[in-house]
């Protein structure tokens, strides 16, 4: 349903399934009780003999209460478990232990592929730089060859906006920072974003798997022209 990235879709589908299950149980219960146990016209039997100034008699069932403490706990442990691997995939380490190997040698290709679970694996990665500033993006190809990474300008909504050209099948490691305030490049089609913070560096994996040209926006509020802080990410073959 979602069609963002294979990784996103896999968790989304599982979550929607559990949401539906919880929703059907809760709402089924709610609708049944609110109709089945409604009082008839004019009739108001005081079931538990509530009386002003008297703490009402206890109405509990330890077994039931433990059931709906334990079952949701089990469910969330399971949901955390299935969210664990994607956590590693999104913030994979740099280097041999990670999912994207070491930095590529000259002329080496990442040859990235998506496995059955939706995770992207690569043989190696290319490093690029992204810098945010009020209110434009600056891309730095860090000496990569022209076919792997190039920067350009494009006209969008009548204004000149930066453009970053990447190559499909290659994985990039973005080293990011900001010149003034916090910004956040949002790569909608890669299903990922991360803040850029002045005075420090943050990092992000950008696995370019298929050809696409999409709009990158700033997702952390950064001032008057925040909405105009856009760029074009162009993944070519």
């Amino acid at each position, binding site marked *: 349903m979602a069609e963002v990235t294979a990784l*996103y879709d896999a968790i*989304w589908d599982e*979550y929607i399934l559990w949401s539906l299950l919880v*929703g059907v149980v*809760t709402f089924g219960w*709610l609708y049944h*009780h*609110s109709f089945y*146990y*409604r009082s008839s016209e004019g009739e*108001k*039997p005081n*079931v*538990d003999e*509530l009386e*002003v*100034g008297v*703490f*009402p*008699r*206890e*109405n509990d*069932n330890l077994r*039931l209460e433990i059931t*709906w403490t334990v079952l*949701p706990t089990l469910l969330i442990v399971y949901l*955390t478990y299935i969210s*664990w691997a994607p*956590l590693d995939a*999104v913030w994979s380490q740099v280097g041999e232990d990670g999912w994207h190997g070491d930095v590529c040698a000259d002329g080496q290709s990442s040859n990235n592929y998506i496995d059955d679970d939706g995770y992207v694996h690569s043989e190696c990665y290319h490093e690029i730089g992204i810098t945010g500033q*009020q209110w434009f993006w*600056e891309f730095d190809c860090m000496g990569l060859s022209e076919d792997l990474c190039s920067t350009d*300008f494009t006209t969008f*909504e009548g204004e*000149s906006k*930066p453009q970053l050209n990447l190559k499909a099948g290659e994985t990039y490691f973005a080293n990011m920072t900001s*010149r*003034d*305030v*916090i910004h956040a490049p949002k790569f*909608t*089609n890669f299903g990922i*974003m*991360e*803040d850029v913070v*002045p*005075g*420090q560096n943050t990092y992000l994996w950008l696995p370019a798997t298929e050809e696409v*040209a*999409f*709009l990158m*926006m700033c*997702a*952390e*509020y950064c*001032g*008057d022209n*925040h*909405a*105009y802080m856009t760029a074009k990410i162009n993944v070519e073959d």
Partner: protein
Amino acid sequence: MARNVVASRCLVVFSILALAMVIAPAVTSLPTGISGIKDSGCNCHGTDPSDSVVPFIGGLPESYNASETYTVTVSFTGGPSTDGNANLGGFNLWASAGTFTVSDSDVRIWSPNEVSHSYEGNDQRSWTFDWVAPDSGAAVDFILHTNSVNGNEGNDGSSGDMWNRADATVLGFGPAPLPDVDPFKVLATLMLVSAILFGIVVLYVFYRQNPSGFEWNNFAPWITEWLTSTDHKKIGTLYFVQGLFFLGVGGIMAMMIRLQLASPGNDFITQEYYNQFFTLHGTTMIFLAAMPLIAGFANWIVPLQIGAPDLAFPRLNAFSFWLQPVAALLIFTGVFSGGGADTGWTGYAPYVVSETAHAGVSMWAAGQIMLVASSTLTGINFLTTIAVMRAPGMGWFQMPLFTWSILVANVMLFISIPAFGVGLIQVFLDRTIGTAFYDVAAGGDPLLWSHLFWYFGHPEVYVVVVPAFGVISEVVATSARRSIFGYKSMVYALAGIGIVAFVVYGHHMFTSGMSPALRFITMLTTMLVAVPTGIKIFNWLKTMHGGSLVYRTHTLWTLGFLVTFTLGGISGMFFPSMGMDVHLHETYFVVAHFHYVLVGGTVFGMFAAIYYWFPKMTGRMLDERLGVLHFLTGFIAYNAVFWPMHRLGVVGMIRRTHTYYITTADIQALPEWAADWNMQISIAAYVFFASNLILVVNMIKSLIRGEKAPADPWGGWSFEWMVSSPPPTPSFDPQNIPTLLNANEHVANEPGRLGQWFQRFMVADDAAEGESH
């Protein structure tokens, strides 16, 4: 008599102070007062202007002809810029009127009346472009800033650079036209004029009814009473009125936001105004609407429920309240000085202390510092009251659940809000006297604010939703004519939420570069929130089992709450899951989620509370037919507003932008249907806003000619239903506090399972057994 003179004098002094507070911000908006960003300039490199840089604007005529195009050249000399640098310089030119057009890639347009250099253009010292004169005939001002750049790259790229400013004026050909109106001021003036007219009408009606009683001596005690009362019921009403008023103000801002977003690329309001509206919408709704509404009910109902004559510190309580309207005035002050706060309610550093943020941010911070003080004092008051002023027979585990929820909310608030106060004071000092807590260049840490804010911000959202849990617990039990299912597990769940609230705030900062290990821990703790809230929802459902559900308006809002809050809870589970959060963060999925829990949770809970306790508070019944109409229109419109936002978030629509982009032939953005959906959301939002006016009409109508309310219209058990409607003052006779009886007396005296097991080791105590009967 002497007392009345003093009271009147106090009133005069008070009025003068209030007037001064209204006028002062208007004065600061004069050219000599607080100024906007236009004057402080550009992204200037370095802090002070340098005389060695000489900017120059060429090509402008002495006086212009209507709509004629002039070719403008801006240039500069001097400074560190020398041939051979990687970059040479930059500029920013702002014109008060007319339109710039650009023909080459060295120059770019920010807005029709503002141009600056582009990336390619930063290796120049002179730039050329066109300026199309306006046809108004008024003189046009130009402000030019230029940077002279020495070309060093990287993070310290602007070190050693210099800048300066030049102004120019081009005369027009006609009389000066009136300046453009400021929409905010028009709105404020309209509201002020309507309020004055309304006031005159009300006074006239009073006058016509009793011309001889229309004397200052008759009004003065009434006004003095409301201004100086320390009665928890009067202060509760003041809180309640304030909360409803700002719910309306925040709603009007939401309407502006929705009108702007109705279609992509809309220019109904500018980004400067949009950014103020969404910031003030958030701040208003949380701090000036939700919190006072909750404080209003807490003030009214908690002393009544625990059988206390008043709160423990009535004067402190009055002080807590009177901080609120003053704080509200401060928060909105920025609007009058030409730029209200535009930081989002989160106010992330370093933007919040940067020069590009609107001038009103300082006042916004100052106002919130006062709210922090108010909340802290309220916390002290309620914790003390609940701890020591319970009626005889009411142990901790016999307190009504609404009182429990207020206790838990105030404990959370009391522990978390100092962090927010500290952050705000740092921001205020940074902005006013130049400290450097958040100045990155001076070693300040922008993430410190995020930590301080969210350490408070996450418990804060529970502070506003937990009292709604209390209301729902009361209403479900009373309407189903049953005692609440699992009273003790309800209390433990509330306390559990109160504890978990403090260890989950990291999920707001998932994408700010935190360590993966912490991300995993926060993921787990965040999901844990679902356990106590799940217990509460299942307990509420089980309470209805075997009951006899009486359908009144408050019952409907409670059932509505159960639907929307469950949906909000389910959508909340999507965020801790990292693989999805990095996509959903800062999208409309988040907006949908927190409106489902804050409107569908807090506001629906407060609506239920209004319909439930209004007869107790005023002695008048609300109209059930209007109530049902309010519920049906409100509930349907509400879902039509926020449900589609989930999908918009999934396809990547970002929060806090005044416009959004639809996919074009060469760039992929939002799908085409997103525009239609936004239009539909905007229409539904107006229906939702209008539906809430039914509640206002209902309340006014009932106050004037509502049916008289009995002491216990719904059949509740707690003490507030024992006193008359409306309750007397003091609410309970201090000499004659009622004793809470307990229907479980026999059970309470029997040992529990553990006790029974232990008793096997005990020698039977026959003597004690005999005495107890």
